[in-house]
């Protein structure tokens, strides 16, 4: 050993990758000026999927809170937008407010749901989603079971409307990804994972689990609520049985499992894969869903850390460094290189 080993979080290559990725994120704002309007609409859909996948990943992958009821927030966000728009709030303002109201819903549900562990929590969240769907379906002002349109956006020319919706969606996506990154990068990141792996052992090391789980649940609630509101702004029409449908949970599971659960980058990759598959194979109906299920099971069994583990383990840097590594000085090697040399011992 040449001297004291050092804890490093990011080398130069990683910092470059992170800056590059941030710049790319900002460049995406230019898309409506460069591409056709259907591309803009497609990318809006992709952004909402990215939001959903990273929210479910931070909740289930990092926090161990496996929810199969995030569609409760999707539907709530969408219907809150409709509710506000019906009361003459500008639809885009309504979308932002709906995300805030989703936070209120999450705060209200947290004391009930976070009491439950494991499978109970999963079922509990699903029950909440079904109950909300029933409540909405019974409300004639919200269109009942047949669905409702978002009015007020037809004042804009279609191309501009799609551009505005895209910009708002992209802004939400980037803001939420930054929030997740900050949460994972700070000392809360390791604490969340410690609580996931063993809550009592985490407590013995000074971690208070309650507030962390609460924060995760509210963040995921806001994110999924925003995704629901933005989905409505993108499609302009929703029905309770589709926006509150449990198929959303299946999609979330697919994106996160295939992309790589418990990594920051994986779910983003998973969202892209899911988006492409949906685009190519959705016309096969039930067979498409069966295929999705089989692929997800395959990944869970044979590649539990997802597609990102194929790419990420080979890269000499992290795209977004949320972890830690110990390396030997002098600091000549790259982060990834020393990770492997140390782990081979």
């Amino acid at each position, binding site marked *: *050993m040449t001297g*004291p*080993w*050092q*804890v490093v979080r990011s080398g130069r290559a990683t910092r470059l990758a992170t800056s590059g990725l941030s710049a790319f994120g900002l460049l995406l704002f230019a898309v409506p000026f460069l591409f056709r309007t259907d591309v803009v609409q497609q990318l809006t859909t992709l952004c909402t999927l990215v939001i959903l996948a990273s929210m479910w990943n931070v909740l289930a992958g990092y926090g161990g809170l496996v929810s199969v009821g995030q569609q409760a927030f999707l539907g709530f966000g969408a219907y809150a937008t409709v509710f506000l728009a019906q009361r003459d709030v500008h639809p885009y303002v309504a979308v932002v407010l709906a995300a805030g109201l989703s936070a209120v819903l999450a705060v209200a549900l947290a004391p009930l749901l976070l009491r439950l562990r494991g499978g109970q929590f999963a079922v509990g969240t699903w029950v909440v989603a079904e109950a909300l769907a029933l409540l909405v379906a019974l409300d004639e002002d919200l269109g009942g079971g047949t669905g409702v349109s978002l009015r007020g956006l037809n004042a804009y020319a279609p191309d501009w409307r799609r551009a505005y919706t895209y910009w708002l969606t992209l802004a939400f996506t980037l803001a939420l990804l930054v929030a997740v990154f900050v949460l994972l990068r700070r*000392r809360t990141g*390791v*604490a969340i*994972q*410690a609580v*996931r*792996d*063993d809550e*009592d*052992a*985490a*407590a*013995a*090391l*000074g*971690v*208070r*689990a309650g507030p962390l789980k609460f924060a995760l649940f509210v963040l995921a609630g806001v994110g999924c609520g925003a995704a629901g509101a933005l989905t409505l702004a993108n499609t302009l029409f929703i029905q309770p049985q589709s926006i509150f449908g449990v198929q959303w949970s299946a999609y979330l599971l697919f994106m996160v499992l295939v992309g790589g659960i*418990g990594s920051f980058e994986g779910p983003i990759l998973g969202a892209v894969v899911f988006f492409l598959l949906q685009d190519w194979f959705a016309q096969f109906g039930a067979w498409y869903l069966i295929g999705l299920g089989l692929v997800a099971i395959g990944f869970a069994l044979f590649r539990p850390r997802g597609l990102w583990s194929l790419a990420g383990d080979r890269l000499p840097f992290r795209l977004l460094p949320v*972890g*830690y*590594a*110990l390396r030997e000085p002098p600091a000549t090697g790259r982060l990834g290189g*020393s*990770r492997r040399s*140390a*782990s081979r*011992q």
Partner: protein
Amino acid sequence: MTAVLEGRDLSVRYGDLPVLRDVGFTVAPGEAVGIVGPNGAGKTTLLNVLAGAVRPTGGTVRFDGRDITRARPDQRARMGIGRAFQIPRPFGGMTVLENVVVAATHGAGLRGHAAHRRCADVLDECGLTTLANRRAESLGLLHRKRLELARCLATGPRVVLLDEIGGGLTDAEAAELVAAVRQVRSAGTAIVWIEHIVHVLVQVVDRLICMDTGRVIADGEPARVLGDAVVIDAYLGRTS
């Protein structure tokens, strides 16, 4: 000198079953106290009460003279009571280093460079440097035990509670562990150590407490306690 850790009249009942009965003892700063006794004597329950994992039905726990009977485990960890579990409980999905980072950033409340320095030092002390970037679930028993100790030390404890950390190890491995615990002691940290392997224990501790059926039946110098007729009867057996 004020005791760093003190239990007074501690009682725990599970339903009608008394597990601890009026247990009292003190640990002076920097002192190493061993706890022995047959299975079911209440040793682990006592440790749980000290760590805050079990709320006593009677009595008080004091740390630095302060009543902490109602403090949560995470609060006690931050005050300076470190704990290593009987069966190591690593955070399997995280690396060895990240396991220790949890303790340094939360238990010790260190940030940035100071936290990193603490982690590197503790891993070095516990012989885990070359395994730092491995996932904790891939470690074998000895390394898991070392990690358990490393995490506990990274919280910067003033007293550590060790629960049978020598169990399941070979003699050579146990000797290594003794060396590590000795090092902890020489740094001025008080130790409360439950251990069945008495010859390992007496190499480190200044004092021995023997428990049986929820009571302290002897408390004093190791040689005297091990020679005590009551202790021999309850724990060591007549044949030896």
